[in-house]
């Protein structure tokens, strides 16, 4: 229960942050990705602001085995840079550049009642489903 409440809080603050920052607006995102046009560097400030806070949080987290609510710290263990990571990143980046949506802003725009965002999110979930199917058939083979 505590875990879910903290998750709800984190999700809400994350969403509000995306709205404040302008990232929930795909045109703003595309303005950042369009370096050859009139470039809007704002999104670099979003990343900068988030990482400023994040660096401190991870420095605190690194020294702990339990979270402040008493849960085990579940940190990523892989530091392997492989083909999956890069190809996956490239695929994601192409999709990001086509629509101006990454997963978080897509979900926030869906919550704002945007039909187009709902279509994007449905396709994204379908894509994640396709990934699951491929992974499972690979695991069997």
């Amino acid at each position, binding site marked *: 229960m505590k875990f*879910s409440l903290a*998750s709800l809080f984190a*999700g*809400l*603050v994350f*969403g509000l*942050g*995306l*709205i404040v*920052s*302008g990232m929930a607006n*795909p*045109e703003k995102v595309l303005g950042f990705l369009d*370096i050859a*046009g*009139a*470039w*809007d*560097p*704002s999104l670099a400030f979003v*990343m*900068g*602001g*988030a990482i400023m806070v*994040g*660096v401190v*949080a*991870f420095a605190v987290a690194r020294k702990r085995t*339990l979270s*402040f609510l008493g*849960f085990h710290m579940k*940190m990523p263990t892989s530091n*392997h840079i492989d083909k*999956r990571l890069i*190809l*996956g*990143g490239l*695929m*994601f*980046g*192409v*999709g*990001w*550049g*086509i*629509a101006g949506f*990454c*997963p*978080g802003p*897509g*979900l926030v725009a869906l919550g704002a*009642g945007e039909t*187009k*965002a709902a*279509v994007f999110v*449905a396709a994204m*979930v379908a*894509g994640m489903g*396709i990934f*699951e199917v491929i992974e499972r058939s690979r695991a069997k083979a």
Partner: protein
Amino acid sequence: MIEIAWNNFTPWSALAGGILVGIAAASFLLLNGRIAGISGILGGLLSPAKGDIAWRLAFLLGLIGAPAVWVLATELPPIEIEAGYPALIIAGLLVGIGTRYGSGCTSGHGVCGLSRLSLRSLAATLSFMAAGFVTVYVIRHLLGV
């Protein structure tokens, strides 16, 4: 030569929003001991383990519910989606498959991964940023859409 769109440039709200995103990721990390990676939280619902569903739904409810909470205080800023439906479907499929295949998106690799100084996440972030820049260049400047 890079030309800056000064009239669209919003460094203060971008920074403030970024700090909020950072606070969200920090509270998720320090309260629950987890990485706030949105594609992972959503994608994990498609192969859920026992006891692993409620918190994912709660996080997503917060994220999707953010605009509803926002409008209690003030009007939502504009959300301009220029892409047509076929483009949105292709983009969604690519984002869905790509983020799962590459184990993360802008939040997990970009915000959290760079914050914990992970080289793996840096490589992922450089990959999706580069692909994003190239894609927009091709669409806007080569194809002229």
